[in-house]
């Protein structure tokens, strides 16, 4: 398959770009909710609109009422979310949780997917237990209790956890903390007894939760997939999420770069447009190159993932690491080249820097993924 969008995908890109620029723009969404100190950090009305556009259930199978599309398509929406810094549950709900629910029973899918497709429900995914992404270590325990399980432990920095109607929780049902096996995924409803959330606002105005499970009773039918068979599903969720986050990151990078290049063509100093200075031209051109490469590795990885290729695993880490570097460069150069106004809250470039920082951390930063590339390559 050639590495560019086919006609249908190009049409979707047009639609998504127009819609997000109109409805998901910084003024209408990010600043609006931030300035009102919104406890969700995003707008439910937009989520509903995204459902009407057909976005929320893109990755859900057609048999379950979704569109049965792939990661190239989801990535198109994520790219526009990134470019507009649109706060929304799309990545956590429509990519991560939807990927987990693919492996759920008929009952679970019937219980949760219609709400997602309608834009009525929001889901979160709880994996990490520390400040850094360490999916290899899962200590939260789910012990057999009657016909179900009792959940004990804690999860850190669960994005949109406090807004979620259901949280996918990775817990240990056997073995010790660092074991590969012995993981089970649970769909935990928001009103579960003995679950407490402590919400914290992050630098990009998103909201994350620290969740405590103090003997949370779960029915056996809350299990997603098989008991002790959660690692494979978790890996699929992580790969989908990382590729999705990378797609959003390319959008952030493109948005920051375009804004910066425009600024170079408007701002005058020393009687000249600053874009005439070669010192800035070369840095802008270098940045362009890096962002183009990030874009290429993301579409390549999306296609591999949609084709079920084995190399999607390795390439998802290549993509996440490359995007982290490229987007990081885009926002840093963006603020620097904007000069003093780049430091003001009034200008949007700083918002790109904040979002990039949070996105870099999400599901593993460049260091985590470069290390993973080395491990998967055998060194």
């Amino acid at each position, binding site marked *: 398959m*050639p*590495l*560019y969008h086919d006609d249908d995908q190009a049409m979707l890109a047009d639609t998504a770009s127009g819609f997000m620029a109109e409805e998901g723009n910084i003024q209408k969404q990010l600043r609006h909710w931030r300035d009102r100190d919104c406890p969700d950090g995003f707008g439910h009305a937009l989520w509903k609109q995204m459902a009407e556009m057909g976005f929320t259930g893109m990755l859900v199978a057609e048999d379950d009422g979704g569109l049965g599309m792939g990661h190239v398509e989801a990535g198109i929406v994520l790219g526009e979310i990134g470019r507009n810094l649109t706060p929304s549950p799309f990545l956590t709900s429509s990519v991560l949780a939807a990927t987990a629910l693919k492996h759920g029973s008929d009952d679970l899918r019937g219980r949760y997917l219609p709400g997602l497709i309608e834009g009525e429900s929001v889901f979160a995914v709880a994996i990490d237990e520390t400040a850094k992404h360490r999916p290899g270590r899962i200590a939260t325990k789910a012990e057999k209790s009657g016909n179900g399980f009792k959940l004990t432990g804690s999860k850190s920095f669960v994005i949109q956890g406090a807004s979620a109607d259901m949280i996918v929780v990775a817990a240990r049902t056997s073995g010790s903390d660092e074991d590969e096996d012995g993981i089970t995924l649970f769909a935990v409803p928001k009103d579960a007894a003995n679950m407490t959330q402590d919400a914290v606002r992050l630098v990009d105005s998103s909201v994350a939760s620290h969740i405590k499970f103090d003997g949370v009773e779960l029915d056996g039918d809350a299990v997603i997939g098989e008991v002790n068979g959660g690692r494979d599903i978790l890996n699929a969720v992580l790969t989908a999420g990382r590729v999705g986050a990378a797609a959003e990151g390319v959008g952030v990078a493109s948005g920051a770069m375009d804004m910066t*290049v425009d600024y*170079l*063509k408007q701002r005058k100093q020393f009687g*000249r*447009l600053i*874009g*005439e200075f*070669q010192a800035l*031209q*070369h840095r*802008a*051109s*270098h940045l*362009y*190159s890096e962002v*183009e*490469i*990030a*874009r*290429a*590795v993301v*579409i*390549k*990885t999306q296609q591999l993932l949609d084709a079920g290729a084995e190399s999607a695993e*390795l*390439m998802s*880490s*290549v*993509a996440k*690491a*490359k995007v982290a*570097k490229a987007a990081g460069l885009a926002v840093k150069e963006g603020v620097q080249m904007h000069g003093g106004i780049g430091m003001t809250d009034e200008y949007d470039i700083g918002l790109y820097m904040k979002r990039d920082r949070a996105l870099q951390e999400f599901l593993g930063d*460049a*260091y985590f*993924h*470069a*290390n993973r*590339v*080395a491990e998967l*390559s*055998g*060194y």
Partner: protein
Amino acid sequence: MSDLESFRAETREWLEANCPQEMREPVRDEEDVYWGGRNATFKSDAQKAWFEACRDKGYTVPAWPKDYGGAGLDPAQAKVLRQEMSRINARPPLSSFGIWMLGPALLHFGTEEQKKHFLGQIARGEIRWCQGYSEPGSGSDLVSLQTFGEDKGDHWVVNGQKVWTSYADECDWIFCLVRTDKTNKYQGITFMLFDMETEGCSTKPIKLISGNSPFCETFFDDVKVPKSYGEGIPAYVGEINRGWDVAKYLLGHEREMISGAGGGDRTSAIGAAMTRHAAKTGDELDPVMRAELAMFDVDALAYGAMGEKFLDEIKVGKAHPAQPNMMKYVGTELNKRRHELMMSAGGSRALEWESEQTSGGKPSRNWLRTKANSIEGGTSEVMLNVISKRILDLPGS
């Protein structure tokens, strides 16, 4: 089975039958590369058999039309062939500036007779071409070139000097930028084709920091170049005085070629191989070096995807016309970094300059050679200028 899938199956079978095992080993040195030409010799029977099989099938230039010695493959088929060759690590059967540079220029600007005449020779590996662009006073500022062809009616008399002419001492013919109008900087250059055996042509190899001499100085002393080689076969490409258009078009191809966008070595990861190699000799790489290798592998694999995307897009006209400059910039900087890391991973052994176990100092000579990557065919700084101007549309550049 789709047409493309059956083409893949046929190709796989053909390669299995025709590509000797020896031709699936990595290229180790210059002798492993077959350049063709009047004075060409084959290093081995396998090299000869592989070249001849490809020549007869049109696979020395698979995407060129059959009339000009190619196989007439469409872009999708050409990609399949590339993938299948790369799958078995098949070496290119014929390397040539005729294929990479002159060919594309003739395909775009040449007359029908020129194409039939010159392209066929190139495809069959009969004539080895070199490129006369740079001059001592005209490097990055190529258009200031001074080599002059004085109009004598049915021929020109060419005087001047070229530099960095790749393998000029081993080549048969040259495609050469010659000033034919001193009053017009951009529209006063002609893209000439002539035989290097013509009286007045001489070459002198330049010894480089790698100790090798892949480049020459080339001198023209009253060289008589006819304006035509027969009916419909002018001795120049495009129009007289409009050679700069051809040169600019070709620079795109040259940059694409130097960028390594086609894959192969330039886009592969090195961390695992470097670590294994060190372990074999009882060494262990430092953790910080492992981190650098991992970061490099991320960049190399991502660049591989960029190369694939670039080639896919260029075939359907989706790529920005100035994108080869970006590819050249990134590809060459990456290749320099690759060789810096390989030198570090190799330790003192990589410093050996003449030893047998380094095949005559391969690691260090190759490392030094890569320093030219970001200079030849337009420096990295010139590439960045072009991106600024033509892609980002920045002012005043």
